[in-house]
């Protein structure tokens, strides 16, 4: 049943995510400041200081320690949260793998930002996608509303016993973290009912055990096999959680979002905030008589292989917009889409754009879609 008493507010992305975290009631937080995440930490600290969020905010000296702290607290039974970006996520990386390998329920927000060098504080997706093999579920938001919604969903997905995996919620640095948009907030009691307190422990304190010990080759591969199985099971759980969320909010989510895909001949694939600009480009192409559609990837891990293949298979040509590159290989999302579409006879092109905060406009996407329709698009094009 849909909630009647919605609160509508203008919030910047960082504050919307902080609000969602407050409503999720984590007991332990550890966050180290880094642009463009810092204003989220500031807001969370205000909530803890005022008592609105009854949680322990552990002051740490680095991102590595931030994740180490919440990792321990999560093992001990607490609901936990952390957040970072860019160089901070890199510094956190050793612990990222520890948390993923141990399948500990953690929610981390990543305010996506380019990686040095050269230095940039602005947006791209290199930090986020570089964690694709760390056994974390990775969701990415298109706008401030979605960042709020996915943060709430992330706690439920992470703690589901069929899953038990850390979840990373990515949202574009500055473009969403610092942009104020209209947001519908759920009442606290509705969030309480959606994500009740975590009621299980990963350690039985009456029967202590060591965690993270050395594993024999026989055991090691077994752990990794279980991690992969858990990742596969999470598809169903994510879909279920998003369906339950839709019942409350009326907002429909899923592993992917398809806009005007039904009869689309030419598909643009994207992830994150510029998916909104891609919607506008698709509308403009339709006005010109080109049957374009948008395939937005919301769940980067697990990658929605079947859903992507189905959409690609119905089209005549695909172009994937990437804000990240696997150097010496190609656009990271493009490679995923190509892999998922194996066996199909549909050309899949790659566009690299928007690195280090470079603005990308619907008209750039229209030009690419025009060229795709005219069969004049290269395999890989950089919008320099």
């Amino acid at each position: 049943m849909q909630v009647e008493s919605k609160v509508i507010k203008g919030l910047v992305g960082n504050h919307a995510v902080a609000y969602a975290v407050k409503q999720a009631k984590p007991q332990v937080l550890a966050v180290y400041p880094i642009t463009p995440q810092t204003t989220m930490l500031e807001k969370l600290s205000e909530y803890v200081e005022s008592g609105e969020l009854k949680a322990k905010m552990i002051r740490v000296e680095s991102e590595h320690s931030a994740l180490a702290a919440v990792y321990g607290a999560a093992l001990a039974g607490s609901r936990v949260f952390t957040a970072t970006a860019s160089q901070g996520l890199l510094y956190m990386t050793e612990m990222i793998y520890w948390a993923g390998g141990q399948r500990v329920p953690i929610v981390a927000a990543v305010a996506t930002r380019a990686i040095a060098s050269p230095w940039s504080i602005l947006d791209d997706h290199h930090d986020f996608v570089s964690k694709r093999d760390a056994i974390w579920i990775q969701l990415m938001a298109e706008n401030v509303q979605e960042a709020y919604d996915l943060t709430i969903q992330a706690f439920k997905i992470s703690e589901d016993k069929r899953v038990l995996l850390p979840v990373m919620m990515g949202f574009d640095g500055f473009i969403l973290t610092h942009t104020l948009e209209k947001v519908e907030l759920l009442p606290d009691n509705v969030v309480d009912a959606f994500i009740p307190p975590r009621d299980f422990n990963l350690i039985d304190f009456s029967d202590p055990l060591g965690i993270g010990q050395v594993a024999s080759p026989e055991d090691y591969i077994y752990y990794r096999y279980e991690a992969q199985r858990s990742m596969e099971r999470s598809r169903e759980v994510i879909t279920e959680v998003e369906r339950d969320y839709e019942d409350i909010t009326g907002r429909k989510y899923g592993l992917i979002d398809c806009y005007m895909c039904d009869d689309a001949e030419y598909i643009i694939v994207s992830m994150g905030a510029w998916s909104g600009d891609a919607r506008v480009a698709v509308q403009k192409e339709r006005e010109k008589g080109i049957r374009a559609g948008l395939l937005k990837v919301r769940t980067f891990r697990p990658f929605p292989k079947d859903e992507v293949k189905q959409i690609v298979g119905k089209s005549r040509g695909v172009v994937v917009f990437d804000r990240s590159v696997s150097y010496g290989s190609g656009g990271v999302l493009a490679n995923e889409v190509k892999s998922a579409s194996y066996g199909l006879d549909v050309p899949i092109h790659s566009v690299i754009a928007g690195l280090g905060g470079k603005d990308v406009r619907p008209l750039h996407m229209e030009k690419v879609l025009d060229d795709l329709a005219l069969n004049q698009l290269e395999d890989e094009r950089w919008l320099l």
Partner: protein
Amino acid sequence: MLEISLKGRGGQGVVTAGELLAKGAIIEGLFAQSVPFFGGERRGAPVSSEVRVSDSPIPLHRRVYNPDMVAVFDPSLMEILRPLEGIKNDGILVINSNSPKSYWKNTYFLDATAIAMSIGLTIGGWSVVNTAMLGAMVKVSRIVDVNAIEDAVKEEFPGKLGEINAEAVEMGYKEVSLVG
């Protein structure tokens, strides 16, 4: 959809002005977005913010290239930033200036610095002109009712500070006039 570009200097409250304009529109039931732009800003360095207001959801996240209104918080920025580049043909310029100089066919001016000084809106000797500029912007563009802006201002700054800023909005609203 209307797009607005705000240009000022660090310390003048440009980012807050953009957010308050968007919040006022949201209070009125509209859709709005406020996008600040940061570099290595310090007090006094150029800062900009961009605002969109629409009666339908706003999917865009690109920057603003063809604003319907440009608000310049410091006239010295007219030469440094070329803020009128890309302005729509019938676009409006609102400028904080103590003289009725015409920069553009639709130039509106007000002495927002004098307004801020007169009611004590200063921080460390810098006049905080954003709320007076907001009053002027809503007067000449009519995008949002001035009462919604005052509500947003009072929510942002509780107590006495909110009242002073709401007064600045009203003064800006009354004092802005067309050059020409």
